[in-house]
């Protein structure tokens, strides 16, 4: 079974701090995704990556950056956290060879910015 793990389930940070959210998958998937989920707004794609060192902006990239130095790891960076970035962050992965199985999600990180 695909396993996608995220570094923290809950995180509390202060406004202006630099925040790193880590995601690791163990199935050699090429594609990785970061979403945020807010009540009433569904899932919104922040960034995705389809290969090491490759990244593309999603629908709401402002205030975020990403890093993919190794295939299994995809990091989401909040350069200077703000209160409007308080949210649930979900990481997912998939593979072109198994795209037909869809995306596999990590457990999520609930980030609170004070």
């Amino acid at each position, binding site marked *: 079974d695909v396993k996608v793990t995220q570094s923290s389930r809950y995180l509390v940070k202060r406004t202006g701090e630099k925040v790193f959210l880590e995601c690791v998958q163990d199935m050699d998937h090429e*594609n990785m995704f970061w979403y945020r989920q807010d009540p009433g707004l569904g899932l919104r794609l922040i960034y*995705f990556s*389809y290969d090491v060192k490759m990244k593309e902006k999603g629908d709401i990239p402002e205030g975020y950056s990403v890093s993919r130095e190794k295939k299994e790891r995809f990091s989401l960076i909040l350069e200077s956290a703000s209160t409007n970035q308080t949210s649930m962050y979900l990481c997912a992965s*998939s*593979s072109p060879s198994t795209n037909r*199985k*869809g995306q596999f999600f*990590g457990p*999520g990180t609930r980030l609170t910015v004070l």
Partner: protein
Amino acid sequence: ELKVEQNPLFLSMQEGKNYTIYCNYSTTSDRLYWYRQDPGKSLESLFVLLSNGAVKQEGRLMASLDTKARLSTLHITAAVHDLSATYFCAVDFISSNTGKLIFGQGTTLQVKP
């Protein structure tokens, strides 16, 4: 515009009743996914529908895909409390290697005893 719309967005139903959640999408696709999310948890894959006329069933849930109508349905038979969750459909519009999906807004199902 690539859009995926679910309805209803909220559904409160009695145990034992049947109901259907609808997922409409705006342009051609032959890959549609259903996910379940329990409160405070992440998304779990339920069904993968890969061709017109595809039907998948697990327990009290059955999903179908009509690519000509650009419509998928998730039918709930004789609902039980354990089915209370939020259900998302997602569509792969782009036949590429990115695997990018467009998600519906989610339908929150509340099953009352």
